[in-house]
């Protein structure tokens, strides 16, 4: 019998909600790591019992926790994220040089092929990899030492590497996104990186279509179409069909094209989900109504999904890692809000219901589909 496991990171701990494939009755475990700020948790596609978590606190900094029994028990593993070689400078908010300084892990991406290999996207922007089950971490420093790196500047959340997509058919190809440097691609396992921002336009830049400097909020890819990537940018929802060679806008009739997460339906590579947010000055849904937008045409035309979602006085944001889809057909869609709710749909977004409420601020939502 299929099991669905939803992993929720919050500002004060993590929660795990589990249901069978009908996704009706949810059993909740937590808080795990109570009091820790858990930016992200994610399960291994190779072994669903292997789950990673990235708790941090202001007092103690970053730790990494690993479970080998499906998020029931946890063991702290290595937490030394040392940038490799000399660290140069990036730009501070005011444009002055600022030394690279590790702050936290934003995203953990387990390898699609090896259970002991996991990638970590960190702030200040860098990509680390562990190949020994999290005991030690090595930086893939070709990204941080890219020729453009001294021009990168932080977004409002910091200079963070928050998105890592790995092509399951060719793990040497990866996409990453950094706020506010933009999107990058490697075809050689991280030895070299190409900025892939052609077609993006960002009003906060002196040169609106610059090579780097774009505040990319999130990327999503269907595993069978690794050349097609969807992007929620600071403003604008974008799409590329040539692995980032050029992006074109697919915001279409969205009520707002500002937002954070983007996801693709595993059953249809042309079905895409985003969550419209009012603006970069007003980080809450337009009109106080939480609506998930779904396009079945690969963008451009969007329908607003509202049934079961709060349609008045809803001012929670959905952060970039706080939307996930399961692998069922129709797929389940899960969104977590900064006002502490996790909503689930088990019919591809048509109808929703809360599976968790009154949590601390939700920072991330991931889901495992376990046969």
């Amino acid at each position, binding site marked *: 019998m299929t099991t669905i496991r939803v992993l929720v990171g919050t500002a004060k701990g993590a929660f795990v909600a589990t249901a069978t494939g009908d996704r009706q009755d949810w059993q909740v475990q937590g808080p795990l790591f109570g009091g820790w700020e858990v930016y992200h948790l994610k399960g291994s596609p190779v072994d669903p019992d292997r789950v990673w978590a990235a708790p941090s606190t202001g*007092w*103690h900094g970053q*730790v990494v926790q690993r479970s080998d029994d499906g998020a029931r028990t946890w063991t702290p593993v290595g*937490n030394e994220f040392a940038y490799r070689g000399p660290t140069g400078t990036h730009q501070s908010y005011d444009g002055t040089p600022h030394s690279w300084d590790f702050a936290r892990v934003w995203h953990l991406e387990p390898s699609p092929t090896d259970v002991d290999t996991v990638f970590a996207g960190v702030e200040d922007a860098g990509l680390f990899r562990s190949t020994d089950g999290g005991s030690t971490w090595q930086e893939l420093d070709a990204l941080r030492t890219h020729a453009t790196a001294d021009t990168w500047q932080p977004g409002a959340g910091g200079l963070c590497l928050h998105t890592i997509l790995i092509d399951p058919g060719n793990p040497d190809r990866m996409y990453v996104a950094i706020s506010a440097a933009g999107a990058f691609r490697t075809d050689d396992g991280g030895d070299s990186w190409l900025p892939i921002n052609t077609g993006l336009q960002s009003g906060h830049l002196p040169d609106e279509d610059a090579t780097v400097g774009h505040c990319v909020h999130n990327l999503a890819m269907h595993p069978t179409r690794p050349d097609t990537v969807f992007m929620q940018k600071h403003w604008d929802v974008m799409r590329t069909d040539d692995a980032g060679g050029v992006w074109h806008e697919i915001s279409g009739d969205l009520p707002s094209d500002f937002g954070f997460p983007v996801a693709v339906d595993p059953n249809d590579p042309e079905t895409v989900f985003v969550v419209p947010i009012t603006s970069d000055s007003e980080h809450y849904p337009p009109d106080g109504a939480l609506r998930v937008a779904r396009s079945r045409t690969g963008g451009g035309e969007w329908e607003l999904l509202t049934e079961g979602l709060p349609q008045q006085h809803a001012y929670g944001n959905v952060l970039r890692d706080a939307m996930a889809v399961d692998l069922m057909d129709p797929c389940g869609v899960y969104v977590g809000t900064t006002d502490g709710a996790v909503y689930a749909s088990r019919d591809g977004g048509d109808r929703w219901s809360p599976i968790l409420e009154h949590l601390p601020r939700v920072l991330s939502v991931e889901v495992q589909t376990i046969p």
Partner: protein
Amino acid sequence: MSRTVRVGLPHHLRTLAGTGRETVVSVGDAPTIGEVLDALEAAHPALRGTIRDHETGRRRPFMRWFACEEDLSHEPADTPLPREVVDGDEPFRILGAIAGG
């Protein structure tokens, strides 16, 4: 010759290390602040990086250490522990600054 000293830990470090409010660590005859922190991290590797910076060994900004009603946070690592701590009458207290959470 070695001896043990008592170390008080804050909540999050207790859960990481799997200890109670206090743990004991083995040190030499003339233990220093640095030695007791080294011994603590050796006994509980999960605490590495959570009290002192991995690379520089410097105290994390929101960590403090007290003993015998004195703030020792700004003392050098080679500062000898107070006699009461060495004798086991008082703990060496590691705690989070009130601003750190």
